[in-house]
């Protein structure tokens, strides 16, 4: 199975795993991301900080492998890169408990949630996040057993080799198990679905000609080159 109708293609078969093509992610789940909003999180239009997980979907046209070029549309100087750890679901997860949640995880990978920067989180257009190629992931799926503690993974993001962000899954508001429990309370996740745990703020930015690399302990390095879209 392939995604992206020929202009992008990601092999979903990553033996021994097969990705379903469904990628969900949590926003504002890293303490730094919510903290960056400060008092604004309690003011209009939001009214109150989020109660349930704030989730988004990266559709199949966004999926891309490590090394795929991300295109920057005309009139946009830079894109944002949300560096996340993603859970790869191993078996049907419906109403899982926090304590057993990781039993439903087959493995982990790095997810780069690429967006056109936007200041309002009230009802942002999907054209900021759902563009072709805006969800590079990989470079491979690392088996659950090979990761001692998913709640203590350090993500390092580099732009052209210079370290620009260090973040840890230890600082998630909902760690992996809690998030999986809260999400599967109302939506079942299937084998091969990916759930990105959330990026730290401020998100690193990249302009045309830059290459972003995201590394995580034991998960390898995801390389994302950025180029202006052809006119």
């Amino acid at each position, binding site marked *: 199975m392939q*995604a*992206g*109708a*020929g*202009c*992008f293609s990601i092999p979903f078969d990553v033996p021994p795993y097969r990705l*379903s093509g*469904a990628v*969900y992610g949590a*926003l*504002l789940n890293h303490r730094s991301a919510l903290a960056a909003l400060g008092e604004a999180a309690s003011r209009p*239009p*939001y*009214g*109150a900080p*989020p*109660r*349930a997980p*704030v*989730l*988004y*979907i990266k*559709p*199949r*046209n*966004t999926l891309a492998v490590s090394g795929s070029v991300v295109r920057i*549309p005309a009139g946009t100087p830079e894109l944002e890169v949300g560096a996340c750890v993603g859970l790869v679901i191993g078996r049907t997860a*419906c109403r899982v408990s926090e304590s057993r949640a990781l039993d439903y995880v087959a493995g982990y990978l790095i997810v780069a949630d690429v967006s056109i920067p936007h200041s309002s*989180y*009230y*009802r*942002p*257009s*999907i*054209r900021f996040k*759902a*563009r*072709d190629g805006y969800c590079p992931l990989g470079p491979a799926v690392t088996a659950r057993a090979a990761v001692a503690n998913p709640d203590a993974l350090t993500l390092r993001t580099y732009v052209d080799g210079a370290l620009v962000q260090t973040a840890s899954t230890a600082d998630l508001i909902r760690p992996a198990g809690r998030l999986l429990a809260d999400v599967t309370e*109302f*939506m*079942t*996740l*299937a084998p091969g*679905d990916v759930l990105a745990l959330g990026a730290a703020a401020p998100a690193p930015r990249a302009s045309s000609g830059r290459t972003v690399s995201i590394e995580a302990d034991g998960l390898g390095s995801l390389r994302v080159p950025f180029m202006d879209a052809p006119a």
Partner: protein
Amino acid sequence: MMRARVAYAGAVHDATPEREDLRLADGRVVTEEQVVWLPPFEPGTVIALGLNYADHAKELAFKAEDEPLVFLKGRGTVLGHRGATRRPSGVKFMHYECELAVVIGRPARQVARSQALTHVAGYCIANDYAIRDYLENWYRPNLRVKNRDGGTVLGPWFVDATDVADAGNLGLRTFVNGNLTQTGNTRDLIFDIPSLIEYLSAFMTLSPGDVILTGTPEGVVNVMPGDVVTCEIDGLGRLVNTIAADDEFGR
């Protein structure tokens, strides 16, 4: 042509209408009640429109924007004809939304509206449930409102585009327990089907199986466990769903 996908006697079958019944691809004729109806095609990306009818936007006190209000849904939320959708106990406002679903048949990338309909394979009825109690002001409409298990009903038939004379002029009706509660016509879409395909394909490649739920007109009402919700669109059939309580799901 109208086609369904159903489970019957140990296998999944393609089926076509045979008077009030169904003819399976292998020749057997069975009744509507004998089969389990699956969504009539394998959905790829599920794209949905909020507030795309002027009357419904007014109903929800929404000021029309200059670009379509689009949100995405996952595959786990999709359900077939004659299924059951759970209403959690304690919620105050759960409502259906009868919508025309447009199924993509050819990859669409930067398609002009004049060419847009050539990328459409066909149509079906969608019922896009929402539970407004869970609405929060972050990335609206949030998934807990709109992407719940069993909350996106598709079917019963996939109808080829060539069999729909004008998708821009189809009457929609919803009945709750037989009482008409919602009426509309796709001619009142704020963003019509060609505009939506042009808008979306400008930034995301649409692939065969991707589906656009084009929004719902006014007339959404609260539904309770046991209610039978029937969504009807001219030429596409009648899509039936029953609201179920928590206990049916072991909660």
